[in-house]
């Protein structure tokens, strides 16, 4: 992302471009949260409080599974997609709409490559929480955090060596994966004991 978005913000006003990217991330996260939050209204009406029991069982179980994969304890094929956000969007859609589209697509979280298996629990939890506001909070936070991470990375690059910055971050992917896995384990525990 940094290697793709970094050069894009060199065209036009950098701060505007990054702000547009963050707005796209917020919009993407909110959109998937809205869709999942509305999708769960029918099962909520049909199952009632049983949905809460399903949440307490399924979400920690999913966290345990995905954490085991992210921590490297479970050697199974990763669930992921091949699709990536098309690099041609800023050309085909226009500069700022394209950057917004990048943020939106990445903020959705489920339409591009899944970097960590624990990411899959974000939409799952939003679906099973049975509450529109909670679903929105979970997914919008994801979309916003992902966009802000890109902004932070782009802003921290000296000059315009985004390729080197991307390489530097990639070298930290394994520790980051472990961090995400450990977080998922702690969260699974907290949900079970709460």
């Amino acid at each position, binding site marked *: *992302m940094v290697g793709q978005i970094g050069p894009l913000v060199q065209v036009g006003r950098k701060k505007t471009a990054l702000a547009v990217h963050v707005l796209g991330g917020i919009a993407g996260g909110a959109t998937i949260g809205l869709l999942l939050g509305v999708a769960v209204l029918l099962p909520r009406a049909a199952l009632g409080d049983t949905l809460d029991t399903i949440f307490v069982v399924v979400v920690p179980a999913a966290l345990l599974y995905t954490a085991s994969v992210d921590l490297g304890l479970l050697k199974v094929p990763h669930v992921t997609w091949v699709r990536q956000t098309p690099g041609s969007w800023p050309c085909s859609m226009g500069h700022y709409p394209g950057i917004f589209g990048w943020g939106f697509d990445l903020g959705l979280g489920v339409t591009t490559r899944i970097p960590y298996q624990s990411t899959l629990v974000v939409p799952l*939890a939003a679906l099973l*929480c049975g509450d529109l*506001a*909670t679903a929105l909070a979970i997914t919008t*936070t994801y979309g916003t955090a992902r966009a*802000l991470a890109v902004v*932070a990375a782009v802003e921290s690059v000296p000059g315009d060596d985004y390729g080197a910055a991307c390489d530097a971050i990639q070298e930290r992917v394994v520790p980051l994966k472990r961090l995400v896995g450990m977080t998922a384990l702690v969260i699974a525990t907290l949900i079970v004991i709460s």
Partner: protein
Amino acid sequence: MARSAHFGALLVLAGVFGLAAAALVGGTAAPPVGTLPVFVLVSLSLVVGLSTAASP
């Protein structure tokens, strides 16, 4: 130094946004799954979201 401060400020901003979202939902919407699960799941979203900057 300025870049590190900028980087840290953006991460803090993300954290504040996430916690505010969780507080808003947990405090006013009375989520059926409970307030703590909302907070921890928003935290998961934060950690996963912030960790994905390098992915394509």
